[in-house]
Structure formats: structure tokens, C-alpha cells
């Protein structure tokens, strides 16, 4: 009975929902079933929103112990600051709304410049990667270095107006080897997802319900 409720019932529900949603995508089903699928989709949207709440709890779970147990003052302060700002932002968002002045002040004057600065550091990471890792150790790395050089320099807007033939080289690299490689990856990924879905449908894929060691 326990195995029926813990394992078989969830797997059966998953199989039924998979069949219904899969069929609805390809066929025009009767309104009753189509409305049921719409309802399911709304439930998934709601559940996904709860994932945000879970994320917030996770941040608290990680940083609260750091405040209590960390030996370094800087770690304590940074974690405390994170939790304070997160709490203030959540309170403003929930009580005053995301269009209110305090919320948009935090967004425009704190989140936006800090996020932009963090992502801007990527330029230096790439610079460091080029300095350290682009080395001709074998044939594949030589091809990588040459194609990176051609595509990076070809992507510079100032190069191609003066050297139009250079654009053709870069375009060929992107349109032929890149597209063919990406197509192979996309098709392989699609086949993998298809087979995973079939395995879930026939209850062969059980990791989502069966516990570790069972």
C-alpha cells in the first residue's frame, strides 16, 4: 500500500498528465479537456512562483548561519547586509508595490548599477582567459585559437567596412561549421528530451518519486 501511494500513484499521475498535455499540443481536443490543460498550466505558473519564495528562504538559510557562526567580521556584515536589503525590498514590493518610488529607487540606484558592474567584470575574465588558456597544445586548440581570432576580429564593427572580404570569412565560420555543429547539438538534445519523456510516460524514469537507495 505504501509503495502504491509513494511510487506508483505519482508516476501514474505524471503519465496521465504527460499524455494529456502532449496530445493537446498536437491535436484540437474537446473543450473540457482543453480547459483542463489550461488549468494545469495555470497551476504550473503558480507553482513556479513559489519557487521564487523557496529561493528567498534558501538565501536566508545560507546566510543566517554565516552571521551566527562565521569568524570573519566581513562575512558576517556582508551576509547581514544582504538579508537586510532583501527584506526591505520584499517589504516595499509587497506593501507599496513594484511601481512605488522606494522600490524603483532600490532597483534603479542599487540593483541596476551593481548588476551592470558585476557583468562588466566579464571583460577582464575573458582577458585573463585569453592570456592564460589560449595555447596551441594540439590540433583542436589551434583550430579554436584561429577561429576565435577570425570571429573576434571580424565582429569588430570597424574592421569589415574597410575589409569586406573579412566579413565573408567570419560569416562562413558562423554559417557553416558553427551552424552544423549547433544543429547536431540541438537535434541530439531534442532526441534526449524525447526519450526522457517516453521513459517518464512508461514509468521507467522514476528518480523524481523513488527515494535514494530504493
Amino acid at each position, binding site marked *: 500500500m505504501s509503495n502504491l501511494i509513494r511510487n506508483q500513484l505519482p508516476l501514474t499521475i505524471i503519465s496521465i498528465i504527460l499524455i494529456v498535455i502532449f496530445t493537446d499540443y498536437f491535436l484540437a481536443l474537446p473543450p473540457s479537456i482543453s480547459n483542463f490543460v489550461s488549468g494545469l498550466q495555470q497551476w504550473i505558473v503558480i507553482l513556479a512562483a513559489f519557487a521564487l519564495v523557496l529561493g528567498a528562504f534558501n538565501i536566508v538559510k545560507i546566510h543566517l548561519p554565516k552571521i551566527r557562526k562565521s569568524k570573519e567580521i566581513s562575512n558576517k556584515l556582508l551576509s547581514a547586509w544582504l538579508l537586510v536589503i532583501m527584506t526591505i525590498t520584499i517589504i516595499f514590493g509587497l506593501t507599496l508595490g513594484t511601481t512605488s518610488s522606494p522600490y524603483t529607487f532600490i*532597483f534603479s540606484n542599487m540593483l541596476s548599477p551593481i548588476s551592470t558592474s558585476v557583468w562588466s567584470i566579464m571583460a577582464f575574465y575573458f582577458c585573463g582567459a585569453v592570456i592564460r588558456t589560449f595555447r596551441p597544445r594540439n590540433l583542436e586548440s589551434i583550430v579554436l585559437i584561429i577561429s576565435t581570432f577570425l570571429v573576434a576580429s571580424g565582429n569588430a564593427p570597424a574592421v569589415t567596412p574597410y575589409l569586406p572580404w573579412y566579413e565573408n570569412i567570419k560569416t562562413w565560420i558562423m554559417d557553416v561549421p558553427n551552424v552544423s555543429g549547433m544543429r547536431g547539438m540541438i537535434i541530439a538534445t531534442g532526441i534526449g528530451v524525447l526519450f526522457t519523456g517516453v521513459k517518464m510516460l512508461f514509468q521507467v524514469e522514476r528518480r523524481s518519486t523513488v527515494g535514494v537507495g530504493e
Partner: protein
Amino acid sequence: MESSGVIMSNNKENWLLRLVNLDQRYYYLALIILLVTPIIRPIGLPILVTAPTKDFYQYVNNNIQENDKILIWGGMSVGFWPTEYKPGVIAAVQHFFDIGAKIYWISDATEDPVICDQYVFPTIRKGSAVYGVNYVNLGYYSGGEMAMSAFAKDISSLVTQDYYRTPVNQLPMMREVSDANDFDFVIHITGSPPEWLLRQYNSAYGKDCGFISISGMMGIYLPYYASGQLVGFINGLRGGAEYETLTGNPGIGLASTDTVSTGHIFFSFLIVFTNVLYLIKRRLNKQ
């Protein structure tokens, strides 16, 4: 003479050794100088428009008319807004407003509706466009592809109010749409792969789709563009600058292309230079 030759050889080796073991912070400093200088003193280098941007522009010019409905799924994060999304989004949305199309903006990223509210719509020259009649911000809906699917299937089942908590039945333009079939063009602004939108709108409803994305995604979008599933895409800052050139509305994109050029040329030079130094270092080690 021999001693001076030895001294010269030693000096040359010392110089080479110093060059080979150059602190990489000098490279960072060079990068900062090359990126900042064109911003302070623009060079005005020309720009060539690439095919994906040109096709996106020509599709909009030839197929989108006044009162046509454009659905924009926004998936932007604020960190990429100033450098990657802003030129393309502002140029494209301004183009839509200039044509007189209706914009339905809905978000699949948490920061996107605020970006739309604070940075996009306030920046656009709207002319006689009125909120709720010509453009609307519907807010964020979680669930990614499932939200896209739910919206495409039945808008009223998912969307009951806009970003400002106005009920949709009070917005005239929302009465004109009930599902994906009512839209003329669907765009996704994102740094993610294009499969979600293509599956739910192009494959399921046959809608023409376009993308406004970050630079690094070009390689991933090209297969879909080559197969015709995408009418075109605006690719990062360079794509935004190209679109500004095509629409005749110079903006932040064109102002930043000099920086893009110097940055790319520097990285290309660095690839060659560091490998030459690496080979010199190997030779010196053998000696």
C-alpha cells in the same frame, strides 16, 4: 667586442624575459584605456549591417502596419540592460511606435517589467500613443515556457491585470486579443536559447518570430535563422547599433561601436601576442 656582444645578448634576453613574464594587470590597464577612450573621445568608425539585423528590419518594414499587434516576451536582466539590450530594444520598439503598431509587453523574467516600466517606455517617443490603447505592460508571469504556452492558448486564463494592477477588461487593447492567433509578430528579448518561443508560437501557431538578444547567443540563434524559423534577430550592442543605422535613429548603440571595435581588436591582438610570447618563453626555457 665579444664582451659587448654578450652584454647585448644578455640585455636582449632580460628584456624578452620581462616581456614574457609581464604582469597581466598591464593587459587589464590597456583594456580599460582602449574601452574608455572611445567613449570620452568618439572616433566615428563606420559600421556594416549584418544579414540577421537587416532581415529583422525589412520584415518589420514590409509586414507590420499601423494597428498590427506585436507581442513582446521580455526576459531581460538589468545587468545586461545598458550594454546588450538597450540599443536594440529602444531602436526596435521606437520603430514599432513609429509605424503605429500595438505593443503587448509581457515578461518571463522578474526584473523585466521594471526595466520596461522604468527604462523602455519612458525613453520612447510615443507620439499620440496612449497606454492601454496602443501599448501595455502586462507584468511578470513565472513558469517560463509554460507561461508562454498558457498565454498563447488563452490569454484571459493567465492575465487578469496589467503591471499596474489595472484589470485587463479596462484596457481597450486587451479586448482585441484572446490567444496567439491574434498577434502579427512575436518577439522574445532574452539571453536564453530560442526554443521556448519557437515551440509555443512558431511551431504551434505559425507565428513569425524575432529575437533581441545578447552578443554571445548569435551562434545559437543562427541555425534557427538559417532554417527560416526566425525572421531575424538583433544581436547585442552591435545589432542594436545596426538597427539604429537602419532606422535612422542614432543612439547609445552607435555611440558605443567604437568601444566594441577597440575591445574586439584588442582581444584579437592579445590572442596573437600572448601566443608569440608563449613560444618565445618555451624557446628561452630550452636555452
